[in-house]
């Protein structure tokens, strides 16, 4: 048996030959995609938990995060921004196969339904309508809340589906990715809702904290499972996992995601259980850390998008 080593190289097109990172969605103008995805998670999480908790101001902020940050950032990223409408059904039939077209549809429906929900619940809260009109408003609010709730979840998850569709990027190519997007987003939303609660004083922070504790532990386990799953798969997925754990993205992973995104908020959350004094300050620290963690998570995920090489004998 003769040992055989294969190497692949060439001067101008090494991206096809070696396992290379995707750059379109994370470098240069691609950083807009990263930011858009962060605001997508923050907006989705905040809107969803606020809708369930019945906090009008927080739902408004969640909705605004999508309308004023996520969508414009995506728009500015496009090579031809003025043609954006081409990606929105019914101007395209690509939704049958394209997760981006579906995402545009989900976001559009959410923005419309969210607007109606905000308007109707404002009318209800402030007693603008009464009698039969109030019944109508309540009914519309109910329908709009369901629609907005469903479509904000889809809005927060579609990028996970879009990324997991890419077979040549093994680290993304797993059904776990949309779940990561959803659960991390909800945890971000809980943190932001506590922040809103500190200002409006109408949020049961203790209850949110206990939910947040569980979710943070679930998310930590999810990250472990995700990385273990990538590690077990041969080749490039393992390479990406190694890149996160000990490679060029390790700092973002350990400090951004693990320390700031999970450990610090979790530690503060447990510590506040035993705190007699004012918990506002540690809570603010936890919320800020958690939000930095949200930025780090999307950054690391996009950075870990490493292609398999084109030739069959490479990694």
């Amino acid at each position, binding site marked *: 048996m003769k040992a*055989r080593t294969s*190497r692949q*190289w060439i001067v101008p097109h090494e991206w096809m030959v070696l396992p290379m990172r995707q750059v379109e969605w994370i470098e240069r103008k691609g950083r807009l995609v990263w930011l858009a995805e962060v605001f997508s998670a923050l907006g989705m999480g905040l809107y969803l938990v606020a809708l369930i908790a019945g906090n009008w101001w927080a739902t408004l902020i969640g909705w605004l995060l999508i309308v004023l940050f996520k969508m414009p950032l995506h728009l500015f990223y496009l090579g031809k921004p003025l043609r954006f409408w081409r990606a929105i059904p019914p101007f395209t039939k690509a939704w049958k196969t*394209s997760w981006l077209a579906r995402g545009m549809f989900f976001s559009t429906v959410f923005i419309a339904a969210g607007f109606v929900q905000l308007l109707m619940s404002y009318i209800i809260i402030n007693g603008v309508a009464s009698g039969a009109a109030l019944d109508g408003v309540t009914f519309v609010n109910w329908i709009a809340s369901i629609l907005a709730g469903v479509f904000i979840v889809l809005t927060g998850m579609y990028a996970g589906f879009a990324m997991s*569709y890419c077979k040549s990027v093994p680290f993304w190519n797993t059904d776990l990715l949309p779940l990561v997007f959803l659960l991390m987003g909800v945890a971000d939303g809980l943190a932001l809702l506590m922040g809103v609660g500190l200002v409006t004083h109408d949020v049961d922070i203790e209850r949110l904290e206990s939910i947040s504790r569980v979710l943070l532990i679930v998310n930590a386990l999810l990250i472990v499972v995700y990385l273990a799953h990538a590690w077990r798969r041969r080749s490039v997925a393992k390479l990406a996992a190694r890149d996160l754990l000990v490679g060029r993205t390790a700092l973002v992973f350990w400090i951004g995601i693990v320390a700031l995104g999970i450990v610090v908020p979790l530690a503060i959350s447990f510590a506040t259980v035993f705190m007699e004094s004012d918990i506002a300050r540690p809570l603010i620290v936890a919320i800020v850390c958690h939000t930095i963690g949200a930025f780090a998570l999307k950054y690391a995920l996009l950075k870990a998008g490493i292609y398999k090489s084109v030739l069959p004998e490479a990694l």
Partner: protein
Amino acid sequence: MRWGMVINLAKCMRCHACVAACRVEHFLPLHVTWAKLIAHEVDEGGVVDVSTYPVRCNHCADPPCVHACPTEASYRREDGIVMIDSDKCIGCRYCVIACPYQNRTFLSKDKDPGYFPGYAKTGFERKGRKLYPHQVGTTEKCNFCVERIDAGMAKGRRPGIDRDATPACVNTCQARALTFGDLDDPESEVSKLIRKYNGFQLRAEYGTDPSVYYIDYRIGGAPSNKAPEHARTGYNMKHASTVDRDAARRLGRSTVKGEAKQ
């Protein structure tokens, strides 16, 4: 009808003529390349052998780029050619990421500085831009010289047989390593080559069913696929990888352990 290409790796001599022909044919912007050459080296017990792979869009039968495109700017014609309508493309780059063969390029402004950066466009470039607008902000890739195929067929010519209906890279290859034709026709030259030499597709495991096939002595799998030693692509190239320091540096970076050979 499904247009396809067979690339004989044993014949390719890495002259880059196909890359140049494509560039001239389509007036490609300075930093954009549709047809490319990539090199692959195998070290068997100290014997280093280099093969060159001409690559271009595979015009996949089940193209992820088309499925990913949110605007239907990417589409597959009935004859199997995968196209991009630059007037519909919004430049989202999802197709660039979804193409498992990394064959798409987003044309950003800096990739198109003109053939003589800092100077006005030449008459040649201006004329070229009328034929091929190359819109900045959209995505591009090899189109199998669809304009030659369509114009040629309109004149009754046969792609793959008559030069004026055949892709420029195929016409220009002096080693005759590229063959073009109808994959659906069992009597076409491409179908015969695939059958005879066990043609294989790159990364068939993705299920994309590429229309570009390769024939080679090494990775087609079957013994009949072996070219004689003197015909191997790397036969005269062993020297290159040992003297080129830059290549050696890359080799060091890209060492990959392969399976032991029986």
